């Protein structure tokens, strides 16, 4: 190869690959799947990975959606229950017993003596509760959390 030809190849690579690169990034933005596959939580106690799909897939632990997406208890439509846990389990202001999001579906009168766990407590008691009950799955802090 002559130096001139080598230069042409290099410039060709710049132009073609720049085009391909820009198109790949711009025209095909990665969109997250509708039902998440895995989640990766970050917290002061270290990151924690939750393999969502394996928990409900037939080939995995075959759990029912409503075992975790638990409220409303008997949803007419599963979608009503499939919300982020943090939608209902939030840190509350002083004097508040439940978050405003409950009022989407309930009257204030229904909720008089309701108490709601904050998000990380909800996670811990659900995840660890079931693992204890099932006798398998991590229950120790450092089996979920990675610093």
């Amino acid at each position: 190869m002559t130096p001139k030809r080598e230069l042409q190849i290099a410039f060709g690579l710049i132009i073609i690959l720049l085009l391909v690169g820009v198109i790949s990034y711009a025209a095909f933005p990665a969109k997250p799947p509708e039902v998440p596959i895995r989640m990766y939580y970050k917290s002061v106690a270290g990151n924690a990975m939750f393999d969502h799909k394996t928990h409900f897939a037939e080939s995995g632990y075959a759990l029912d959606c409503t075992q975790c997406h638990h409220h409303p208890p008997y949803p007419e439509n599963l979608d009503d229950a499939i919300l982020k846990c943090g939608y209902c389990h939030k840190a509350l202001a002083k004097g508040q017993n439940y978050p405003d999001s409950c009022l989407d579906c309930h009257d204030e009168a229904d909720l008089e003596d309701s108490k709601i766990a904050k998000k990380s407590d909800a996670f811990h008691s659900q995840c660890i509760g079931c693992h204890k009950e099932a006798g398998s799955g991590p229950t120790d802090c450092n089996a979920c959390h990675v610093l």
Partner: protein
Amino acid sequence: MFEQKKFTVSHAPFWHVGSSVSTRSYNIIFAALPAVLFGVFTYGIPAVGVIALSVSSAITWEIAFNKVAKRPPCIGDGNAAMIGLLLAMLLPATAPWWLVITGTFVAVIIGKQIYGGIGANPFNPVLVSLAILTLSWKNFLDFNEVLVNYDFSYPMAYPLASLKHFGVFAISNLKPAALLMGQQSGGIGAIFGLGLILGGIYLIIRGYIRWEISISFLAGVWITALLFNMADPAHYAGPVFHLVTGYTLIGAFFLATEDSSSPVNFIPMLIYGASAGVLTVLIRNIGAFADGVVFAILIANLINPLVDKIRPKALGKVI
């Protein structure tokens, strides 16, 4: 100025295989293709985006530097393209565009050009770049985090992270053969071990890389991992696991062998390769990072000038 008839004494590497620098670069790119294509099939369009952007931006940085430094363009030698490709192979398919462009800037300009260009860099430019990216934006390189949306028939927890954080038990269901065939999470071009080995064999046969470095690197990994494993099998994974996960194979055949940051004589090559291999497992087993290849090879680059002093005595030398 460049037309002047002067004898130019060039810098290392002096090893000559009878072909030009550009043939060498493009042969290395060719040898990397099996692993690269496998990554593209696995991760799809996002992987194409990272690879294409990485190669094109690496060449662009190089020509830009040539212009600024008022030197004749050297992008024809294909070295920048090769750097771009190797960097892309180490990155996750989800790397954002700015990370890729920053990465190639660090590799081409800081890793290579400021030392005087090809042959003058004391460290492997690709690894300098990846080390800086790892230290600066570690979340974007955490395979567990950035590949959460990929779903395959095999477990997608990054094997070395599982090993580091959850112990040998967490990797007990991973089969080495499956890992070798690319059934693991990791960098775009680093997961398909078999492809990397094939590429490496091709490069060794053609004389573009030195088998002494690759083999001593792998032997260093193997022996160190074996010793740890024999001492405490409940804590430390076996040697085969270390060979087929993380950046081990791409490190052995494409990174440790980078010419200007590695030695040229037989004994030094063995020392250099083996120390990189030993350090890799030390970092993995008792260091701070899940994978140790990047820093291990950089440290070996550091001792390269030293070990390269061990050389055969010149015949008939008179003092």
